């Protein structure tokens, strides 16, 4: 076998580094895909709005508004962190309230009816 020159050693080192880095990222990718498959729900974070949480968890927004004691209209676009601050609550408390409301709005529990007047049927 011929002796490697300096440049060839450098290419080989680069190759091994890239293979290592790509394998590392591939493991992370596999983990992210596994997480995707196993968890349908995103963790509730401080940047999310009530509308986003309702959209993400597929529950009617009014369920979450009433759980936090907020009026349905006009829609509150504040992030949850700002709502927590406004209500003198911790982010953990807000998460627990929302999780509880979400559980009770999903099957087997029927979601409570929408209290907004424009969504009510004719008398």
């Amino acid at each position, binding site marked *: 076998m*011929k002796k490697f020159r300096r440049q*060839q050693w450098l*290419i*080989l080192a*680069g*190759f091994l580094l*890239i*293979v290592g*880095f*790509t394998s590392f*990222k*591939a493991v*992370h*990718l596999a983990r*992210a*895909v596994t*997480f*995707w498959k196993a*968890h*349908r729900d*995103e*963790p509730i*974070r*401080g*940047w999310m*709005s009530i*509308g*986003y949480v309702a*959209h*993400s*968890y*597929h529950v009617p927004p009014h369920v979450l508004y009433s759980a936090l004691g907020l009026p349905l209209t006009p829609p509150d*676009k*504040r*992030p949850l*962190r*700002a709502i927590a601050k406004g209500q003198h609550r911790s*982010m953990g408390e807000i998460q627990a309230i929302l999780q509880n409301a979400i559980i009770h709005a999903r099957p087997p529990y029927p979601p409570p009816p929408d209290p907004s007047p424009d969504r009510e049927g004719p008398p």
Partner: protein
Amino acid sequence: MSFTDQLLAALLLYGLPLLFGVIMIASVGVPLPINLILIVSGSFVRQGESKLWPVIIVASAAAVLGDQIGYGLARWGGRRLVARISRKTGFKAQFRKAEALAKRWGGPGIFFSRWLVTALGPWLNVTSGIAEYPWRRFIFWDVLGQVLCAVLYVMVGYVFSDRVQAIEGILGNLAWVILGFIVAVILGWKIVKSLRS
């Protein structure tokens, strides 16, 4: 609240002006999570919080402007600096070689770093500027790549609007795996070629 969460909360409150500012600063070279921001913007579009075309236009324009700043700074400031360093350190020949390589492969490099491996984008702006990659060709590949980037990530956010954090994790890793695989194949081919010759 983490810095990323603070940025996303600000995006919720301030919308397009914040999107423009963050993407422009990130394109100059400040490491900010712009892929996640674009995906979340797509989710907001799906929820009716913002409109699709203004988001794509603002994101593309901000990214192109930031890239132009990075390219301009490198071309009119960085080139002189690198030339001085290469003269003093005796790496003048290597500098010329790198410059020729950047000119030869600049176009595809600029294009793919705009949307596939966005973390490399600001570096490619700097190397293109230092190598005096022709500005017209730079802006052509830049606009093409950045519009594709904005459309791609905003639409991913629109389609997977209820799971933005999970999809961003998958896309971020996937891009590096694809790039790593391509580079590994090129280097492996070079090793095989040099062993045969």
